């Protein structure tokens, strides 16, 4: 009898993986703090994922002076501490290698840092794609428009995009 059951376990395991990933996002949704980021979207098309826009945030490029570790040559996992400006938009105020302490309005995002132009670092947070309904990406793409993106940030550094609106 025992031999007949193992394959059900295999299915359950795969279902749990899917549910686990979903739960981690829903947890970020639920426990996260709303922050607003500024961006400019452009649209390449992706064969695999249907239609999406690529988002370029202001927080993708940061001054290397915010990073206190050794100079970055290869992709390095980092934590970016973000604080709100007077206009309510979040900007990176510090980049660290260890999990930072954040107070009050501050949040931190996990990211990957790579070298950029002289004096700058390029940070990627996994928030740079926004999937849209088929073929509506073009509307978001209209040139030189800036957008603000609301992101829920969980206390463990994970961000989930909530919505995207024109800035002006």
């Amino acid at each position, binding site marked *: 009898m025992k031999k007949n059951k193992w*394959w059900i376990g*295999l*299915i359950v395991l*795969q*279902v749990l*993986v*899917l*549910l686990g*990933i*979903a739960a981690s*996002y829903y947890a970020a949704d639920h426990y996260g703090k709303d922050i607003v980021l500024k961006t400019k979207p452009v649209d390449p098309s*992706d064969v*695999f*994922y*249907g*239609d*999406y826009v690529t988002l370029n945030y202001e927080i993708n490029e940061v001054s290397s002076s915010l990073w206190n570790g050794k100079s970055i040559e290869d*992709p390095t996992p980092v934590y970016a501490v973000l604080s709100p400006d007077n206009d309510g938009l979040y900007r990176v105020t510090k980049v660290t290698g260890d999990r930072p302490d954040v107070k009050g309005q501050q949040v931190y995002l996990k990211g*990957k840092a790579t070298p950029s132009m002289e004096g700058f670092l390029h940070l*990627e947070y*996994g*928030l*740079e*794609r*926004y*999937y*849209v*309904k*088929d073929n509506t990406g073009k509307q978001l793409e209209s040139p030189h428009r800036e957008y603000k993106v609301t992101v829920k940030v969980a206390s463990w550094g994970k961000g*989930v*995009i909530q919505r995207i609106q024109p800035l002006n």
Partner: protein
Amino acid sequence: MSDKWLIKEGKTWVQDGIITEEQYKQILSKYPDGHSKQGIGLIPVFASILIGLGILSFIASNWDGISPLYRLVLLIAVLSVFYTAGHVRLKKGNPVLGRAFIALGIASFGAGLILLGQTFHFVSYDARTFIIWSVPALLYLYLFRGKLLFFISFAILTGGQLYALSEFSSYSYVILILFAIGLGWFVSASKDKLLTWFFSAGLVLHLVLYALTLEDNWLWLIVILIGLYAAAEGLNQNLASPLRFFTTGAAFITSLLLYFFLTNTASSLDYPDPLWFGIIYILLFAAVISLIMKKGTFSSFLKTGLLFFPWFYFTFLIGEFTAGIIYLISAFLFSGLLLTEGYQKEERSQINWGIILFLIVTFIAYINLAWSFMPKSLFFLIGGILLFALYFFLQKKKRDVLEEGGDSHEKK
């Protein structure tokens, strides 16, 4: 070979008195009507591929009406149904259909992963999704075998590597290991010729991609290839010949590239640290030679070994141009030796490869040397004539050799 061909040809053999009617029947009975059955057996496989593609594109095209949570629940239901159907079919002794359903289950699992990324607008910047996806694929391959499951795992791992590399410039070692060990284990046990060739081509591809991520140090590729060659000689008999084929092919292309780069002064190359390169290279080369000596196939390695020699380290002595020319000569020698050896052994396929490679080398050498100082119309004209002449000469030689050796075993 198809049954129809045998039935038709066999009759003429009887008429020509080569075999008797009795022998003709015996030969036919040795090849039962297995091929046409195999053809029909492929239909469920194709059907499952179509359904799998259907599911993937269904997910990818953002079905708007349904909330993400329900989409996930729906996918989980689909996944469970496919896997269950697969297990039921396998248990009832229908492996082809059973594996096809399992394959659909694997496709649904991947669709679920992609859907989640899409729903939450998440980019992973690496091959993570594909790694997770490949785990059940490899597990089911291990449990139920079968070509279909092999190709699914192959596609997920190779597609994942290519996707992560082209999209995010991120090479995944985990995928390389899963491919080399997960699939390597399977093909070395399966003894299926098609699978060993696919696996070998894939493995060389994954390693070439890795070498490309090293940028200035891409010439480590030579060490990687010779390592693979050694592994092929030492590890597994089933894999030795396809791995030899593809590593040699990659080394051949590398030699031609080096010839091209080194003889064009505008491009200057960076080389890997000679100390480490030298040590590892010599160790691996020695390993290959000792393995080959044991097998007594040393002479055939002589020509292949030509392609693996790091002449680029001698540019300080002989200059870049000369080193480039040495690479050209090596490529010529290799294809020439391949051809002569083919003529001696009267092996048609080796002769054909020799001809093709010889023509390629000639043409590339011609383009590189003549392009800059010849009028273009003359360049094309002479190039065409040169190729034609060589082609006819080599084909004629091939016919002569193959026809002379009347009772050659390779003659078809």
